[in-house]
């Protein structure tokens, strides 16, 4: 039951807005857009040697729902493993949960951004590891 309250709080007070150093090898950057409404979202993950996501930041130009989704997603992946982020699920839900609806593209934008950020991180890691291998 507390879950929905927590969620609503997220929408009211978005967290993790900002940018990380996009040139760092530890940072994966995902930039995605929603053609339906012209929203753009940049989401960055800072990942350490153990594959733990140490920090997550986002910058979204779009509607409130898109900003809120970004906030929720970054908060969920912080401190988690890369594997967790790849298989992102937002947990078991209490019964009878009812919340306002969300635009479809807003609900997927953050997820797509996470996937894109992880792909960018992998590419960087592969490039760094290539010469020593």
């Amino acid at each position: 039951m507390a879950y929905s309250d927590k969620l609503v709080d997220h929408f009211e007070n978005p967290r993790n807005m900002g940018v990380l150093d996009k040139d760092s090898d530890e940072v994966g950057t995902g930039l995605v857009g929603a053609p339906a409404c012209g929203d753009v979202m940049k989401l960055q993950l800072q990942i350490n040697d153990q594959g733990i996501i140490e920090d997550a930041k986002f910058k979204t130009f779009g509607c409130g729902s898109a900003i809120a989704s970004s906030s929720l997603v970054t908060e969920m992946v912080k401190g988690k493993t890369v594997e967790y982020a790849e298989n992102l699920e937002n947990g078991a839900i209490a019964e009878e949960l009812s919340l306002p609806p969300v635009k479809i593209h807003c609900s997927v934008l953050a997820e797509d951004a996470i996937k894109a950020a992880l792909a960018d991180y992998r590419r960087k890691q592969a490039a760094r590891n290539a010469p020593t291998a």
Partner: protein
Amino acid sequence: MLAVTQCWQCREPVQGPVCAGCGAIQPPPAHPELFTILGLSPSYTIDRKAVDKAWRGASRKVHPDRFAGASAVQRRMALQWTAHLNRARKVIRDDTQRAWYLATGSERPGERDKNQPDPAFLEQVFELNMLRAEDPAAAIERARGLQSTEQERLSALFQSQAQGGTLDGAPAILGRLNYLRTVIDGGHE
């Protein structure tokens, strides 16, 4: 052309929204072709005055006020017909919506449209959005420049279509215009 069907009330053949025989309004199609219901031919180039004229003429036949004394079923059909006409006018009068409609059959991109523009363009839009926070005038001016380029491309595409070309490239251009529009309008804040 509107298909010939059978009037649901008097069973006589009927063409158009209202039966010429018994005066009953016919069930509206769920997804009518928007130009056709106004009696126009699909075209990217339009004359707004002509569209309004067509809309007025069509509305006079099917508006619920014409069926004030008819059954609730007929009044509801009249409402649906008129709502279709009003949507058709709105879509056709709007340059962007008309273009989407002609290119894809829908006046706006689908919610599930995942076609991402090329990364360089997206980066450019992101930078423009960032710039907008600091120097709105400069950001809007640059976005307008990109916008007119895309609009010219779009017009060229529709012209080539008239000579037998396809509109396959239209959604990509329209998508880019959508991103630029949010920069110019200040997004959704």
